[in-house]
């Protein structure tokens, strides 16, 4: 990660904030590579699934994206969130982890071949109200668009958007909480 990569990442986020869904998807994908590098090296020690950290961090990035100032570098913000989520995951398990800022070497880690596992996010999804759960699952797991989801569930697009937004917020709140 150098200044140029940060600028590119920041540009994607600014485009996303302006309403570009594809830029946002690309931003999140690249962010997941960065976070995965950190999570793999740190989480393994405590019996924590690194991918849980990646997902929890992505949710936090999404819910807290208004805390990034659009004129500032974005990687320090992103790593601070990942670090907080990592430390928080250890804290919840009654352990302690040191994550020094200097240690956050810029390592990209591509997605692992996805083994289907019982991720925390699966449990959080299962706890949602049925309406929200079917909307979130249709868009994420089934890969449907907002419009397709609205038709298949016999809802308006606005209702789908609201259910998706609330469902994701609820998942972010419940993530990792028993």
């Amino acid at each position, binding site marked *: 990660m150098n200044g140029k990569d940060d600028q590119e990442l920041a540009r994607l986020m600014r485009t996303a*904030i302006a*309403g570009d*869904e*594809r830029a*946002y*998807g690309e931003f*999140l*994908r690249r962010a*997941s590579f960065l976070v995965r590098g950190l999570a793999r090296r740190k989480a393994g020690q405590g019996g924590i699934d690194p*991918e849980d950290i*990646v*997902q929890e961090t*992505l*949710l*936090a990035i*999404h*819910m*807290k*994206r*208004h*805390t*990034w*100032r659009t004129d500032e570098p974005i990687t*320090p*913000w*992103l*790593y*601070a*969130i990942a*670090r*907080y989520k990592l430390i*928080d995951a250890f804290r919840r398990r009654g352990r302690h982890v040191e994550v020094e800022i200097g240690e956050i070497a810029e390592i990209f880690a591509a*997605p692992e071949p*996805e083994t*289907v596992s019982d*991720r925390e*996010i*699966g449990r959080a*999804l299962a706890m949602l109200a049925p309406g929200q759960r079917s909307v*979130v*699952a249709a*868009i*994420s*797991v089934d*890969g449907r*668009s*907002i419009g397709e989801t609205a038709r298949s569930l016999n809802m308006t697009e606005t209702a789908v*958007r609201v259910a*998706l*937004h609330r469902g*994701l917020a609820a998942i972010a709140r419940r993530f990792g909480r028993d």
Partner: protein
Amino acid sequence: MDTNELIKALAADTQPREPSLSTTWRGAVAMAVALAAIVFFATLGPRPDFATSIETIRFLFKFVVTITLAGTALLVAHALSRPGSAWRRAMPYLAAAPVLLALAVIFELLALPPATWSARLIGTNSVLCLTFIPLIGIGPLAIFLMVLRHGAPTSPALAGAAAGLLAGGIAAAFYAAHCPDDSPLFVATWYTIAVSILAVIGAVAANRIARW
């Protein structure tokens, strides 16, 4: 749900992002000052000789130190509410109010005969001070804790303590307009204790409610 599926769901959630933190902090400070003013005027009000005491340096100094505390605490609380901010670089500003107060104490000790020191320190109003600074500041503190919840403090307890200092600075500035004890010896003792109470409440509360 694997990570790519999660990304699809997040990208599809195109609700406009919430107002920026800077905007939220500005609104919160305005609300907090208004709330503190309402509580202050409803309960205590300025002291009767307020207009004439404006000219005395000890009276004015109380506002200098409390407003300095509020301003520097706002800077630090704002930085602590944002991930990746350079909050450590903002921390030294917090020393401004204590340093001002320490200098004022030294001048006061030089200016007054030792026999009067303890009377000035104890003053006449310490119980009122310890009651009303926390009372005026608790509403503003609640507002600032909501801002921290809206933000993303990576050190919630520290951010809560800074929010408590901010609320304490605002409350103490109002209280200072009522209190007849103007000696820096009084301010350094009782205001400090009263503001610390709010900082501790802020740290404990934020540690519970500002996790995210």
